[in-house]
């Protein structure tokens, strides 16, 4: 099947181009808008001030000239540290920093983060390699968002087709109403309400989820107890997300099934009197597989980015919180690293789907 191979290679190339463009676009937004510049300048001023304070404390007899001298020295140091100037003191224009950022990222070199609020997410002091921070935080998002999506998949995949078969029944109507309702309710608001009821009022679940880190970091000291604690912490967020996401899952898969069940050829098969089992196996599942697999895989891949707003409500130390902390503290390296990894995973998932389609969908093979 040479056609399929060509299709895959073509898509691979196109997705790679899109990927590189996204990396460049991100770099442009970070550096080209002057955002990073502003943040860096603020950081330089802040650090220099802290240094001068320390200098005055350790050198009680310092003259104003000494302090000014020290200030110039530290300003130079920090400006060079943040890449605002080169070793000779010449300013580095944003577009050069931008390309540096792009090339370093494409070499998987994300550099270090110097923000305490970011390294605190993995319980360490700055500086830390960005990749270490992401690797430390990712499992927690998998524990919350990806787990929730997986639970949804496990519930929706067997349930939704059954509902679709009983189209128009009370169950079907209830599911559609539920889907409409939770399409409209913001997940993070649901999180606020559930946290308020079960966390603050009834005190069944914790209210501060940052503490989860302790149990994950020291997991092997006492695996049994820590597993119990982690489960206790994860329950409310996962329930919240499942309540919110299951609506979309059920509705989308139901709609996919409905579209196929009502195709003419299925009707014909039914009219011919083929056994229901055969119709389901040969005419429905086969056709349904590609869109549903796409839905499942993209949902799982997308969940790795975490849910920034919901994580912030729970103060869940995951990818969303990391992304938010990185953006608000203007940590360009971390922002770039997070974007890079997320987009890469998503694009790889799409590529994987393209390859999978060759096996699932004969039309691709013979195109």
């Amino acid at each position: 099947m040479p056609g399929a191979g060509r299709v895959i290679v073509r898509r691979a190339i196109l997705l790679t181009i899109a990927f590189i463009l996204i990396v460049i676009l991100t770099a442009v937004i970070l550096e080209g808008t002057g955002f990073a510049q502003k943040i860096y300048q603020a950081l330089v001023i802040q650090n220099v001030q802290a240094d001068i304070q320390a200098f005055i404390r350790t050198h009680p007899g310092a003259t104003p000239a000494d302090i000014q001298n020290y200030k110039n020295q530290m300003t130079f140091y920090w400006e060079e540290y943040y890449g605002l100037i080169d070793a000779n003191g010449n300013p580095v224009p944003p577009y050069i920093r931008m390309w540096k950022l792009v090339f370093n990222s494409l070499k998987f070199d994300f550099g270090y983060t110097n923000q305490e609020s970011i390294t605190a997410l993995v319980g360490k002091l700055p500086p830390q390699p960005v990749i270490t921070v992401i690797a430390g935080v990712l499992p927690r998002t998998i524990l919350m968002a990806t787990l929730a999506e997986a639970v949804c998949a496990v519930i929706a995949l067997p349930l939704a087709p059954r509902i679709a078969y009983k189209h128009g029944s009370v169950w079907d109507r209830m599911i559609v109403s539920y889907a409409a309702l939770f399409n409209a309710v913001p997940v993070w608001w649901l999180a606020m309400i559930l946290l308020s009821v079960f966390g603050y009022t009834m005190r069944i679940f914790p209210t501060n989820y940052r503490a989860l880190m302790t149990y994950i970091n020291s997991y092997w000291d006492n695996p049994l107890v820590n597993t119990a604690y982690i489960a206790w912490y994860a329950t409310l967020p996962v329930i919240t997300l499942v309540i919110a996401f299951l609506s979309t899952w059920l509705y989308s898969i139901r709609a996919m099934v409905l579209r196929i069940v009502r195709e003419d050829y299925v009707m014909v098969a039914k009219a011919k009197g083929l056994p229901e089992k055969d119709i389901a196996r040969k005419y429905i599942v086969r056709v349904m597989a590609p869109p549903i697999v796409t839905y499942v895989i993209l949902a799982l891949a997308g969940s790795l980015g975490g849910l920034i707003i919901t994580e912030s409500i729970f103060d869940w130390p995951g990818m969303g919180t990391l992304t938010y902390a990185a953006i608000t503290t203007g940590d360009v390296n971390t922002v770039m690293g997070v974007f890079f990894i997320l987009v890469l995973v998503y694009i790889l998932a799409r590529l994987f789907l393209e390859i999978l389609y060759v096996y699932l969908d004969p039309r691709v093979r013979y195109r």
Partner: protein
Amino acid sequence: MASRQVSMSKTISQRYIRPLWDGLKEIWSYGTGKVGLILLILLVGVSVAATVTMPSNLLAMWESPAYWDENPMLVPPEWVSYLGQPVAPQSVNVLTKPVSSGEQAGFMYYNYTAKYELTQPQYPQDVTAKVLGAAIFSIQANNTVKVISPTITFILIRPDNLTLTLTTTSPTISNVSGWYTRMDVKLSLTNYGGVGQALGARYINETQLAEVVGSNTTLLSVVRLGIMNEIVTLMRSFPQYYIFGKLVINVSLGNISSDITPIYQQVDLVLKSLPETAPGANAVKPGLSNALSSLQAALNARTPSGMIPYLYSALGNLTQAYAMSIAYNTFSANQSTTLSSSVSSLSKIISDLETTTKYYNIDIQTQPLTGSYVAQVIVSYSTEAPLTRLPGLPVSSVRIIFKGSAYGLLGTDDIGRDLAVILYYGFPVAMAIGLTAAIATTLIGLVLGVISGYYGGYVDEAIQRTVDVIGNIPLLPILILLGQIAELVFVNNPFMILMTIIVVLIVFGWGGLAITIRTMTLSIKEEPYIEAALALGASNNRVIMKHILPQVAVYGVASMVFSVPSAILTEAGLSVLGIRSGYPTWGAVLSRARDSNRYDVWWWIVPPGLLISITSLAFVLVGLAIEKMVEPRLRTL
């Protein structure tokens, strides 16, 4: 030919109004559509009303605590009284004329009075007053300029006939331009000491006090003072419990014997270890044993008043014995120190008893005092002031405000903002955000999708690759990033910050629709009638406008309706995260609740979220109905 000419209005009616009306009728025919449309009409109605009545200074008003200072802070809605929760009502009294005025002892008095009925057992949050436009005079007397300012007294007369002077103030300005000027004065409780004293005098139970303390007047007055001080301390944290409360004061004796017993034991030990042969033993011994018996008597006494004489006697005996022992050098250094420390401990106990309430447990409970209250603002001027020369009264108006324990339809937030008002003005903002983003996204997606599908080639490729980029980039982080940048760039320009968010939503939002429309266009393009139209010489534009757009437009409408809620939800979500434009959106209200970490304040969290949800729901329901229209396979058979 003239008969075939169709009038303009008829064309419009046939082309646009008719299909729209039919479409609406069809949406109405579905259950979801009916509910959705009703909700939508309500939303539009409220939004229009809010837009028409929106004050022009809404933004400034929303951010200014001074605007809301007459409202109680963080109180639930008034209707909680129907849920069985006692409520103290809000009452704002605007008085432009004094109830009475008159001259007395060289002063001219203007008396402004407001009544307040408290029927349910609940504390009002506060009572405050504002004296607006109080005149301050500057008169020439004996070649010197003299500034005459009023003395303003704020009094609360309670149902128990207690009169509390909440504050007395004499506002003044150093330079009065002209012979008089007017200024505003805010009055609230400052006279904690006076109020505490009045409350103490009324509510201290003298019989109980005498039972506990005894008859010693010094001790009694010390305890009374201590109770009043305690009231003042408590009142500083929760003034409303005391201004509007009746007090139950309970005084009991603390553990005084645990301080006396060690002294007794020490003295006893010293006495027992004193050998008969020690120098001066005969002189020291009686003093010590007298002191011991006095201490025992003090321990047996029931009240501090009863203890005091015995303690004094013990102290006298002990001091004398100590002096003797020093003179005769009776004791070892250790014993001497013990004895001297006993003397100082004992005198400490006596002075504590006579000056502090250390040995009493004072327990003060309050209960709401129901009944009718009268608040008075008395403005008095020295008769030297040229009051008669003034145009009008020396005070423009007085506002006396009893802050309720509940407020309005939806309660208030942490700076007293009326949440009902703020949420009401949130309607048009939410609708504007949702509709702007949705319409623009849909138009771009529709146009680019049709172009991409119809023309193909490089244009198609370029559009598809762009969709690849914008479709794979994580939208929310980009929004936060650009929102953050907008906050840096457009400081104090809420409109531009909001526009940035909307533009980002549009720029990254059209991809999905464009791809769907492209696929549809590709299949429509192959239809024979398109070929026929082209063969007849129709231009590309005409084919697109006449044959393709109308067919794909329905999908566009469905997608538009679905993307309204996502824009509203995204903006609200960004607000909650802290990327705020500055508009009083529902998200901004929620974000303030979140910032102050008050998840327990349900009237602050539930209503804005419900409004966001209901608005989204209206569009989702209409969208579901439209989806059924364009996708018949989803219909219920």
